[in-house]
């Protein structure tokens, strides 16, 4: 028995729109520019697509629309539908086919539209993407990047404000990173694409529109090896009294807290973790050995969150230096609440300073 199909469409045919062609892309900007993080990510991907013909972007609505956050804006027009691919609405399919493409030598960069929608792909990420290099004794490499706009603060409905980093970092085989500034976003997305390992790339969506200086001409550091790689934390503000460990969206909160604390005579050292897996314990421990106190702040729920690992490890490494237990500030053990309550839920400047006070008073 043969079952014929009446398929008549082709993947290159799209009869529903007949939009005018997009204008020619503007030349790649140069020099140091003040850019929002979304634009920095856009330029980072643009450069990667231009430099590496095997790189491609895949995801829902990333093409003509430029993504719901416009992070891929203009890239469809510049690189075409074969490099910037609007996929079917199926996250497992996106990551699963990306794995296949990677096995064929491509470097797929998948956009998951919102944090809460990565879970249909959780199986492919956890059982396949993370483990295939190991399963093959290193014969297969999986240079796949999974971009996830994550975190809250944008007044969104359910599933649009989550912070699932610990769920990925617990699984060996994945690298999990998050930039906190436009400059890091520009560099780190290119490093993630260049990395031979699968990278979960968490973009703090609440910071997409905050601006920062980006040196667009600086040479790209290697993704691994060296201190400007994907594997290192960074002290972003030196201080002496308390080490505050943050990443992604909470780095800005920590820096503001440091300003506020400084005004009251307390000196906070802020470490931007940048990478959640690997965890750069050395940089944090070096700081805590000097300050003797540590507070970790992230948006994800505290219970079984990233901060638990930082606290456990730092306590083990710095036991005799600690003047107080490592304190954690983060989301509560509730689903992400309704938008009107998210500012009660999120670790605010005040809650961070409250923890700083508590650690100092210990």
């Amino acid at each position, binding site marked *: 028995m043969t*079952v014929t199909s009446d398929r008549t469409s082709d993947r290159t045919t*799209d009869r529903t*729109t007949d939009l005018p062609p997009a204008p020619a892309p503007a030349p790649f900007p140069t020099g140091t520019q003040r850019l929002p993080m979304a634009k920095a990510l856009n330029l980072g991907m643009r450069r990667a697509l231009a430099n590496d013909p095997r790189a491609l972007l895949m995801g829902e609505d990333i093409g003509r*629309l430029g993504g719901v956050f416009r992070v891929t804006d203009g890239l469809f027009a510049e690189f075409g539908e074969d490099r910037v691919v609007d996929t079917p*609405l199926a996250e497992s399919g996106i990551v699963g086919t990306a794995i296949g493409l990677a096995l064929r030598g491509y470097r797929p960069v998948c956009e998951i539209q919102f944090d809460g929608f990565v879970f249909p792909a959780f199986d492919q990420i956890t059982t396949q993407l993370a483990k295939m290099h190991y399963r093959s004794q290193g014969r297969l490499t999986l240079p796949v990047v999974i971009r996830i706009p994550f975190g809250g603060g944008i*007044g969104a409905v359910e599933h649009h404000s989550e912070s699932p980093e610990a769920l990925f970092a617990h699984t060996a085989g994945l690298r999990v990173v998050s930039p906190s500034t436009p400059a890091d976003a520009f560099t780190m997305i290119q490093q993630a694409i260049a990395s031979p390992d699968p990278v979960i790339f968490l973009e703090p969506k609440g910071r997409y529109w905050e601006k920062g200086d980006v040196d667009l001409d600086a040479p790209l550091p290697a993704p691994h090896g060296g201190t400007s790689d994907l594997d290192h934390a960074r002290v972003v503000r030196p201080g002496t009294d308390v080490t505050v460990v943050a990443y992604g969206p909470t780095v800005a909160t920590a820096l503001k807290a440091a300003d506020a604390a400084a005004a009251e005579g307390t000196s906070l050292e802020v470490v931007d973790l940048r990478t959640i897996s690997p965890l750069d314990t050395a940089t944090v421990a070096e700081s805590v050995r000097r300050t003797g106190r540590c507070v970790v702040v992230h948006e994800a729920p505290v219970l079984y969150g990233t901060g638990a690992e930082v606290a456990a490890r730092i306590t083990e490494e710095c036991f005799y230096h600690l003047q107080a237990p490592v304190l954690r500030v983060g989301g509560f053990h509730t*689903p992400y609440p*309704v938008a009107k309550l998210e500012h*009660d839920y999120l670790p605010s400047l005040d*809650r961070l300073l409250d923890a700083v006070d508590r650690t100092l008073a210990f």
Partner: protein
Amino acid sequence: MIPTGPAADGPLTDDGLVQLLTPAGERVPHPEYDAWVADLDPDRLRAMYRDMVLTRRFDVEATALQRQGELALFAQSLGQEAAQVGSGHALRPQDHVFPSYREHGVAQARGLEMTQLLRLFRGVDHGGWDPAERNFHLFTLVIGSHTLHATGYAMGVQRDGLVGTGDPERDAAVVTYFGDGATAQGDVSEALVFASVNRAPVVLFCQNNQFAISEPTTRQATVPIAHRAPGFGIPAVRVDGNDVLATYAVTRQALERARSGGGPTFVEAFTYRMGAHTTSDDPTRYRTSEQEEHWRRRDPIERVRAYLDGVGELPEVFQAQLASEADAFGEHLRTAVRGMGRPSGPSMFEHVYATPHAVVDAERAWFEQYEQSFVDHEGHQSGGHR
């Protein structure tokens, strides 16, 4: 050799759509489905028309409220009123609905207090109503997930012995709504598997509004969506989703099959999302104004209005009453939304579990004491940074 039907123009073809009303509002006969609308009297038709008009008003008001900053987001059902209200009217009170997030017309047909739908979009609630009140389940935002809940629920109805008893007051069915984009999700295919294998009394109702945000249905499928179901052992029907009569008819047949123990049916209502995906969307980036204009001329409300008018069943007094009812409805929505207050901070710790959970309790206690500290010491140093 198993043919799957005439060579079709991809998933956006209008081949083989069940239609009872032409776009101009003329009634055309249909050998199979005429019987399913034979007992529809003018009152019932006007009730459908009314629900469509009020649903449209709901969309317009909610969109305006969003623009005014009263809602964080809103997703219109604009253009899909016939598919939603037609299928909603085919339901019996004991039937159950598992909507997606755009089924305002179904809610209206079910008699839900419509302001409750806006709690979610205002950001004061993740749900907003009691699903048991009108057998209208909460909106589900993770695409496709709820089709499995609907299937499982239908399996429960079946287990309860409420299928095929022959008693029209008891036999019950479940309907679940989802979009064309949703059909790509594994969960929707699994729902077809479970529904088929369990002969579950569920109607899988796909509103093919031709878009999943910016992606046309051609990115999700190469043949009409309805073709999918028979391969899972589930009969399917394609219907003109802008035709409230036809949608009513096919859904009624499908529900009756479910209630009587005949198992699941897949309905594809072919329609068009006349508005943006949500208030955050900008459709000019991905579709032409010509296309929008084409579909504006096929407005589902205009179609049934023309029909009722044509057969002399739309008296001016009814129209006038409906207009003032719609105005009052608008006023009611605006007032209700503006009056939806911010929930208390500690309420975020409620209902995480049905029974006490030590970590939640401890965090709540900490939070309340922390909140209290601002009240107690107004000049408290941290409080100053707020």
